[in-house]
């Protein structure tokens, strides 16, 4: 297959994912507003915010790493996208996925956070450092159940290729990992709550908190890049969960519907439960979800 | 309260005892006896809480009045202890060793009235007015209106009236 054509389709896919991410963010904010009896933002507000942030006239920097922080973050999001098969059975939309891409994606998920940590650290704002250390600590705790779930799936399907894992779930709804391996799904879905940045695990990013979390010093284009990445990351992570646990997607419509409901799961929980503090959320994540994850592995080893 | 007042009159020669309202008594004492009186009230009579220290500028008689309000949380009684000090060398004994938070009140009074409390912690640091270099603003010989007009660029076109005169003219236009 022609590599130029391939790159063209990857860029097109990235464009679709970005737009769906922004639109989905708007829809979710609208849903949250309606639940709390407000009319809420316009659905296209994320687009306007993005344009506004890219059009800030004056910007200042604190050094090289401050520039690279958002770039690392964006490359984390785009990196996951590049190696993620979006549509099952399609040559064009499976991007650059290859055998063993699951490990690479799990790595990329942490990569962005680390870049942010370095960048925000150079921002010089004392609260950035507090925010980033809280964020990294919580994100480590969030990653743990997901990693256990991924190991469990790898043992179950004897494969680290997402395409093969999706292929194994085809045929019937009962072939989904959701039904064949409910323990791993449970652990991963709890971890998903944290990854999406909604309550109860959003204290590190909450604007009401004294630091706005790590991006306290980021403004203008830097913040625009972070927002772009956020939109991409939300969709791509939902796609990862869809591929691993909910049977993948055969076309874009199915992908949009499934990612919507997967993302909605975190919004739903977020609307019902109040926030954890960081010192509450980390012990909580390290108890029940990790136990479920360990159980999911033991079931398949024994 | 009656017993207490009699005792205080014996021990500290308090005068001008008035009932200002229920469970609240005003009394006046010599400035040098304030710390002894307050520590007696705190240690023996249960007035454990220092509610506030405030100050009044009696420019006509050339004196500052300091009011110490103490409260007995068990019997729900208040005592207001007034002491007069000279306006010229305005200085008062600090009571920060009785109540730690008294130093904050004293810092504020130092800044607003220029009454010194030697030995009170951080009493010379600015409290509300950073870098104030004029007469302390709550002294009555400080003309706040003049200061404001000189400093803060008043917007022209503003009219102001003496409230008493203005309301008299509005409500009773016929009376002279």
């Amino acid at each position, binding site marked *: 297959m022609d590599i130029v054509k391939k790159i063209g389709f990857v860029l097109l896919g990235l464009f679709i994912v970005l737009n769906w991410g922004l639109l989905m963010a708007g829809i979710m904010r609208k849903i949250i507003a309606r639940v709390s009896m*407000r009319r809420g*933002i*316009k659905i296209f507000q994320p687009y306007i915010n993005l344009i506004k942030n890219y059009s800030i006239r004056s910007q200042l920097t604190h050094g090289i790493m401050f520039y690279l922080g958002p770039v690392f973050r964006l490359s984390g999001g785009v990196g996951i996208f590049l190696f993620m098969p979006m549509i099952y059975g399609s040559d064009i939309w499976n991007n650059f996925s290859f055998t063993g891409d699951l490990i690479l994606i799990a790595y990329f998920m942490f990569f962005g956070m680390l870049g942010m940590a370095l960048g925000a650290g150079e921002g010089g704002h004392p609260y950035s450092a507090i925010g980033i250390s809280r964020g990294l600590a919580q994100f480590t705790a969030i990653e743990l159940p997901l990693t256990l779930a991924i190991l469990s799936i790898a043992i179950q399907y004897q494969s680290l290729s997402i395409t093969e894992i999706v292929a194994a779930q085809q045929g019937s709804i009962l072939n989904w990992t959701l039904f064949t391996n409910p323990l791993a799904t449970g652990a991963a879905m709890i971890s998903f709550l944290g990854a999406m940045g909604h309550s109860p695990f959003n204290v590190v990013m909450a604007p009401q908190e004294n630091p706005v979390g790590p991006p306290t010093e980021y403004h203008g284009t830097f913040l625009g890049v972070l927002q772009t990445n956020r939109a991409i990351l939300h969709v791509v992570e939902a796609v990862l969960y869809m591929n691993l646990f909910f049977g993948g997607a055969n076309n874009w419509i199915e992908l949009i519907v499934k990612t919507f409901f997967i993302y909605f799961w975190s919004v739903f929980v977020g609307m019902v439960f109040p926030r954890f503090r960081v010192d509450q959320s980390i012990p909580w994540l390290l108890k029940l979800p990790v136990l479920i994850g360990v159980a999911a592995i033991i079931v398949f080893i024994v | 309260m009656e017993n207490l007042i009699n005792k205080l009159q014996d021990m500290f020669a308090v005068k001008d005892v008035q009932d200002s309202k229920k469970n609240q008594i005003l009394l006046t004492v010599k400035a040098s006896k304030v710390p002894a009186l307050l520590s007696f009230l705190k240690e023996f009579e249960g007035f454990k809480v220092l509610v506030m220290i405030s100050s009044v500028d009696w420019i006509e008689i050339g004196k500052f009045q300091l009011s110490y309000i103490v409260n007995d949380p068990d019997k729900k009684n208040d005592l207001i202890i007034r002491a007069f000090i000279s306006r010229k060398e305005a200085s008062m004994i600090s009571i920060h060793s009785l109540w730690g938070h008294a130093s904050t009140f004293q810092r504020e009074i130092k800044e607003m009235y220029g009454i010194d409390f030697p030995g009170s912690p951080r009493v010379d640091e600015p409290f509300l007015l950073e870098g104030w270099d004029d007469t302390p603003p709550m002294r009555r010989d400080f003309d706040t209106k003049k200061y404001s*007009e000189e400093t803060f660029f008043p917007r022209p076109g503003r009219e102001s009236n003496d409230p008493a005169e203005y309301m008299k003219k509005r409500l009773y236009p016929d009376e002279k």
Partner: protein
Amino acid sequence: MTEELKDNNIEQVEDKFLAPENRKHTVTGPEGEIIHVDPLQDYYCNERPKAEDPRNKIVEKFLNWARAESLWVLGFGTGCGSIEIPPLLSPRFDAYRFGVAMRATPRQSSVIIISGYLAVKTLKRVIRSYEQMQNPKFVIALGSCTINGGMYWDSYNTINRLDYYLPVDVYVAGCMPRPEAILAAFDKLKTRIKEGRAEGANEYVEKFDWYKANQKKVIKNWNMPDYNW
């Protein structure tokens, strides 16, 4: 030894308003080398601000529309009026539907609401926050106190006219204006931005010396750089 003491004394007289950590001092490095630190020079930027000209007309019109529809407000209450801001985001008034959101950091916000009377001590913090905001930035002044001093017009510690210290875009009269009035102010600000008249940041740069002179007249313990972004 005496020379050194004398020097120190002179410095302390000059920097009598500086916080201890902002005075010139020396730090010993890990290998025993001595580093001289002048925090005002090293930790802040002393450069004058620059005016940022608008781009060409059509692009700027589109960008102004985006700026108007996405107003991020700095969560900074200065006076009694700040109690009118929380209801603005509650279900009853719901400013989110107009694209208004609160941000906790001046870097990301484009609007600062001066809510009510402004004491000199607060003015200093307001100036620092305002200067840390990035270029298209707007000021909404709430209440009579910011217009002519209001009921604090003869106070020794409250400024009378805000427009002598910061370029104001929209004034809201009243004591206190209700949240509806603030929504109307946002509406007014939006039309101003869309018409391209809300160039407060550039105005501040052009009349920088005048603003600084006014600010330094009231803030007597000026212990920060002239422009601290």
